[in-house]
């Protein structure tokens, strides 16, 4: 039977289309109930005895409406909810309303255990309905759901054992109509309550119940048409909101203001107007008089919280007392302390400020965090639903109000929460509980948290992915047919040099002196693309993971470990496939020629840096491998010198390595990352290979080569640093990387040996991020890699742990083998651009995850310890300063306001921190408040690079209140210089800190390039 469906559509170009679709009705759509004998389904989805709920007499199948999926997707995902009939009407509406939710519904349908069956009611003769005249589409769909429910009810009424269907909807009108039709209908709330499961009750989104406000707090957002028009006309500016990590009430967007790229600050709750970090927002500039200047202040938000807590407490007490529907009083004392704390100082160049007028796209995701202990006021063991506040681990996210019945059992745990909405009347966004991860402070819980928070996919590889591994498994060996198109390098003295314990060896080297006095040098890279074919599931998985993530105690692989640590890994004394880059270098390490080839190698030795170094140093070793390493070392030194002469930067970052106890994996020691000449040796040749390969693939794919650039940092990044070092009579010239490198080299203070290192660390922070890009998307001048001082660069040498290198391998292969056929994944500029975007994101996330992991272990290390250490001021904030302790590579905030003692603050919310030091914008330092005569220096001041003594401990109850240590934070308190009100008296340390052998740590003395390009630096921390 043929029907027609028509609807109107306005296209982007402003045309109006009438779309008419042919719609065929069928009589062969089955009910998929296991016991049904009438239908001819082969694999029934719905089980014979479905869900049981005490609200209904019979076991039943659930037919939810669209809003159930949209609003309560987390409930639907709960394992208790099975045997659901998803109507086609509902599925299409869900798809139309929210693609992410549609995807989740699809996943549930694919999950056999959930027993979700899609019933194509729109194509079923018995359940298709025509839209009535004057019936709204929504009413029509509701009717379609009822008709389908009715069809099911009739269809299954005679089955044995007896079953029924239940329509689930939160629309009371629809429920009434269904009941009138003789159908069973129920709301989610009643259904869930009859299940008697607190966990699933908490997962229910109850945005309406939580929205207590009579009072509107925020301005209304503009309509999307308004916004897009305003952006077109230049009245509003669009950008992605980035919230300051020190102050969740201050954010900024980077956008074009009047044609010039710039940052717009958005300060304060009302200006932010419910935007959350990562949202794409529309901003209106504030008048110039309201522009403010940096620096950023740190939120001191205790008063404000107090107010919120009071109101929550009142709520909960009222709830407990009346046990009825609570009538909440939102006490709103002036609570804008946080914004007051960052009140503007007038500097000479005020920064543009703006306010959010609308949100173009939300970036809400699920957040890991914990419940604020102070927001729970009910007696322990109570299971009445209470409204509590949730702190996300990410400090950029505002507190989220959730309703839970298990507040007490969730205290001290890490939980996941989703935001449902943020109405104008609610100070905080409203969300619901999703699941608990585990005890806070527990290593595995915290590791899971940090992986989730950084969006690192860490699930096991699926069967599908693994099915693309070679069938031989571990017994795979190089076969004669593999030699086709490959050179046989098995006789060469190839060796690999890696950190100890490294299992994924993706590079190896060899050198052969030539008759003409030159050297043939080869870099051999694991031939991952031999195993990972473009487009298959394994390739897609790797592309989506983007990179291997190295945490302190574990490694999240990009490729299944059979490939990464075995078949691709260039282990010694086994034949392996490789992609080789062969140069002829003259005595001065200049390239005479270069070629690339696929090859088969057999590494003669896999050495650690130390072993390699020992071989170089040990004059008695005269074997081929050792003498090869000596030659390579000689060439590497020349290469490095030339690179430095070109202006390559030698930067630094404070990185440490933990040694872990074997069984518990607890950190027992912080140790230096050893750096030997051989580190530099390998690195030089890798850089050389990357550059050579970059040139080759750019030649072959001028529009779509995957390259890596490092943009020159804008001079604004250096302003503060320049000002600070001017004090020492040092100038920083950052006009080119060469001048910067020279000024860094000459910036030495004899009395302060650490100064140069510190300066390099701070310079690193002025740098831009290096990025992957597609050569067709940028002009050639922007290809430049600032840090390495080369005009073109790419990543070729680590295909086991980076997907970019996999792509580069494919491009290089296509470039050297003209007979090779390849798909558009290598040539499509758009696809390449998208891929680069994903890789950059994954890369950044992986770095942050690694950093968070170090932070986690630092916290574990300092647990129950209090150390006194020397540190340096590296950043001045409005009401605080940040201290770097080089020994542990850690940073902490020292507040420049008087601490209100705990005893006081517990009672009164009125106590305000007295600023002891105030920010002086002219000198960019914090100074004491006494009035100064002309030319007089203040009594005490804190400025950049200043050396201080701090006491480090773990602040357990900073926010969570009490035991459990919610958002653990490294606490730093000032010991020296003594500033009344800020400094503390050091706890008498039983051990003399100097004699503390465990903690004596050396830093890696140098890191030649920005962290992400250092092949040897961050990588290969032992798994």
């Amino acid at each position, binding site marked *: 039977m043929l029907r027609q469906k*028509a*609807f*109107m*559509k*306005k296209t982007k170009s*402003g045309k*109006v289309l009438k779309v008419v679709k042919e719609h065929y009705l069928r009589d062969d759509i089955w009910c998929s109930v296991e016991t049904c004998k009438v239908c001819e389904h082969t694999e029934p989805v719905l089980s014979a005895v479905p869900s049981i709920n005490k609200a209904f007499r019979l076991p039943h199948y659930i037919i939810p409406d669209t809003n159930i999926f949209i609003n309560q997707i987390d409930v639907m995902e709960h394992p208790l909810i099975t045997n659901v009939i998803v109507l086609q009407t509902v599925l299409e509406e869900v798809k139309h309303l929210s693609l992410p939710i549609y995807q989740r519904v699809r996943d549930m349908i694919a999950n056999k255990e959930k027993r979700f069956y899609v019933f194509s009611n729109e194509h079923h003769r018995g359940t298709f309905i*025509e839209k009535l005249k004057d019936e709204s*589409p929504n009413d029509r769909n509701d009717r379609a759901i009822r008709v389908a429910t009715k069809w099911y009810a009739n269809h299954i009424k005679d089955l044995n054992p007896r079953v029924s269907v239940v329509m689930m909807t939160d629309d009371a009108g629809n429920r009434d109509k269904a009941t009138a039709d003789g159908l069973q209908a129920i709301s989610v709330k009643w259904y869930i309550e009859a299940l008697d499961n607190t966990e699933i009750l908490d997962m229910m989104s109850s945005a309406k119940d939580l929205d207590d406000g009579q009072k509107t707090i925020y301005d209304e957002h503009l309509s999307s048409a308004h916004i897009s028009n305003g952006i077109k006309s230049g009245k509003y500016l669009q950008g992605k909101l980035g919230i300051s990590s020190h102050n969740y009430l201050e954010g900024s967007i980077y956008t074009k203001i009047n044609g010039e790229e710039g940052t717009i600050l958005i300060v304060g709750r009302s200006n932010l107007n419910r935007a959350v970090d990562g949202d794409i927002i529309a901003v209106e500039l504030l008048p110039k008089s309201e522009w403010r200047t940096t620096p950023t202040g740190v939120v001191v938000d205790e008063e404000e919280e107090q107010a919120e807590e009071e109101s929550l407490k009142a709520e909960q007490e009222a709830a407990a007392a009346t046990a009825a529907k609570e009538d909440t009083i939102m006490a709103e004392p002036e609570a804008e302390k946080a914004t007051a704390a960052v009140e503007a100082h007038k500097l000479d160049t005020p920064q543009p400020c703006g306010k959010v007028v609308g949100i173009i796209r939300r970036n809400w995701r699920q957040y890991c965090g914990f419940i604020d202990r102070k927001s729970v006021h009910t007696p322990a063991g109570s299971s009445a639903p209470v409204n509590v506040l949730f702190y996300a681990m990410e400090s950029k996210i505002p507190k989220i109000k959730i309703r839970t019945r298990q507040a007490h059992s969730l205290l001290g745990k890490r939980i996941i929460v989703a935001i449902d909405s943020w109405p104008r009347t609610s100070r905080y966004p409203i969300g619901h509980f999703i699941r608990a991860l585990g005890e806070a402070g527990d290593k595995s819980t915290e590791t899971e948290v940090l992986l989730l928070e950084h969006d690192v996919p860490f699930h096991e590889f699926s069967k599908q992915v693994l099915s693309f591994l070679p069938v031989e498994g571990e017994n795979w060996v190089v076969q004669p047919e593999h030699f086709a198109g490959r050179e046989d390098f098995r006789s060469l003295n190839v060796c690999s040099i890696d950190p100890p314990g490294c299992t994924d060896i993706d590079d190896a080297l060899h050198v052969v002196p030539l008759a003409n006095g030159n050297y043939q040098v080869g870099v051999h890279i694991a031939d991952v693309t031999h195993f990972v074919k473009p487009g298959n599931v394994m390739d897609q998985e790797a592309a989506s993971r983007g990179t291997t993530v190295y945490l302190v105690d574990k490694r999240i692989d990009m490729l299944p470990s059979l490939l990464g640590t075995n078949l691709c890994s260039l282990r010694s004394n086994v034949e392996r496939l490789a992609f080789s880059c062969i140069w002829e270098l003259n005595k001065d390490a200049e390239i005479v020629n270069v070629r690339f080839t696929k090859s088969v190698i057999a590494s003669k030795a896999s050495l650690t840096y130390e072993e390699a170094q020992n071989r170089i140093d040990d004059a008695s070793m005269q074997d081929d491998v050792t003498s090869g390493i000596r030659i390579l070392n000689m060439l590497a030194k020349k290469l490095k010198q030339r690179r430095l002469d070109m202006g390559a930067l030698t930067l630094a970052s404070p990185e440490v390595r933990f040694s872990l106890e074997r069984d518990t994996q607890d950190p027992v020691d912080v140790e230096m990352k050893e750096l030997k000449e051989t580190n530099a040796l390998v690195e030089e040749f890798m850089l050389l290979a990357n550059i050579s390969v970059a040139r080759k693939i750019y030649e072959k794919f001028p529009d779509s080569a995957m390259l890596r650039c490092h943009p020159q940092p804008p001079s604004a990044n250096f302003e503060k640093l320049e000002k600070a070092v001017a004090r020492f009579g040092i100038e920083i010239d950052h006009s080119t990387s060469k001048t910067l490198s020279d000024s860094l080299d000459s910036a030495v203070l004899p009395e302060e040996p650490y100064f140069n290192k510190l300066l390099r660390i701070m310079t690193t922070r002025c740098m831009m991020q290096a990025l992957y890009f597609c050569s067709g998307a940028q002009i050639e001048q922007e290809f430049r890699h600032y840090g390495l001082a080369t005009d073109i660069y790419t990543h070729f040498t680590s295909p086991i742990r980076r997907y970019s290198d996999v792509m580069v391998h494919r491009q290089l292969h296509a470039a050297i083998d003209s007979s090779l056929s390849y798909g558009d994944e290598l040539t499509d500029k758009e696809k390449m651009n998208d891929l680069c975007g994903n890789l950059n994101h994954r890369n950044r996330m992986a770095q942050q995850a690694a950093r968070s992991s170090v932070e986690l272990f630092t916290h574990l290390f300092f647990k129950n310890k209090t150390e006194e250490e020397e540190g340096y001021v590296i950043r001045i904030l409005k009401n605080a300063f940040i201290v770097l302790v080089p020994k542990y590579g850690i940073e902490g905030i020292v507040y420049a306001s008087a601490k209100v003692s705990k005893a006081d603050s517990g009672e009164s919310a009125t106590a305000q921190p007295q600023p002891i030091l105030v920010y002086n914008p002219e000198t960019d330092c914090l100074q004491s408040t006494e009035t100064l005569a002309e030319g007089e220096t203040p009594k005490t001041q804190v400025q950049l690079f200043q050396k201080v003594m701090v006491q480090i401990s773990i602040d357990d109850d900073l926010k969570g209140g009490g035991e459990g240590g919610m958002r653990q934070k490294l606490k730093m308190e000032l010991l020296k210089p003594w500033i009344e009100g800020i400094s503390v008296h050091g706890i008498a340390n039983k051990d003399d800190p100097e004699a503390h052998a465990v903690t004596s740590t050396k830093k890696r003395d140098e890191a030649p390039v920005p962290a992400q390009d250092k092949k040897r630096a961050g990588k290969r921390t032992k798994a």
Partner: protein
Amino acid sequence: MPSLISPAERDYILKGIECNIRADGRQRPDYREVILETGVISQTSGSARVRLAGGTDVLVSVKADIGPVLVDPETGEGADKGQIICNVECAPSASQQFEGRGADELNNELTQMMTRFLSHNTTSLTSTPSNTTPSSTTSSHNSNGAGGINLSKLCIIPGEQCWILYVDALVLDYGGNLVDAVFMGTRAAIFDTRIPKTEVQDLGDGNFDFEVLDDAEDTEIVEGREDMPICVTLNKIGARHIVDASPLEELCTEAKLVVAVNRSGELCGLQKGHDGGIEPSLLLEMIQFGKTLGQTLIKQLDAKIKAEADADMVKRQNGQPVVKLGFFAQ
């Protein structure tokens, strides 16, 4: 369609008309049976197919699209008006004469006639005797002009955007009396037309934008459609005149007069064709005759269109599918 006629045939037809009996048995003022169906093309905003028994077959579609308003640079008029753009095309398969470029002239003539009779742009009406409209019959609905359709209602954002109704008539088969069939079809198609509702949003700064409501139900009719004229073509053969001429009769025609008339009997247009002359007394008689016939025709046509629309509505209210015969109709 034969392009030539033998003297014997001509004589036969001429004499027959003189005796008030035509080759197919009709009398002089008789129309052939008209077969009409609306809503035959679902992709359009409105459509109709008109057939005259024994030949002429015309398909008319109306498509509502959005475009900029057309402002007269001299008078500044038109900023708040929509537009109607007409086009008539004769399919080459309709007649041997239409093959190649054979139909170009006819297409142009019909297109221009439709544009003049439907669109009330006065500049294009100067050549038509709109001023011959008897002043006594001037009434309020005549404010929409000769074309009847209220163009102001088609404007979405004054000075910026409006609806443009593209009226396309396709002649599928030729059996004489094309003009009348095209206008009947157009009237039926306009009656069938539903224009999506629009919601204008004020974006501030004097900027406006609008949304089209995507519900195919939530639509508006073309206002003033009742006042659209239809045409009655009178062919002078010998001393007499006939209506709804067959192809052979058209070949005998000495002079042709197209009378456009609306439901209140107002004369909306006149066009004379062919070489022969018409005496003033006969001319007046013909106009009067055309006017009366036109009014009756409109009445019957409207009744049919309404009956069909009502039948469709009843089906829709009961949730039954509306099935059109369309091109399966015999």
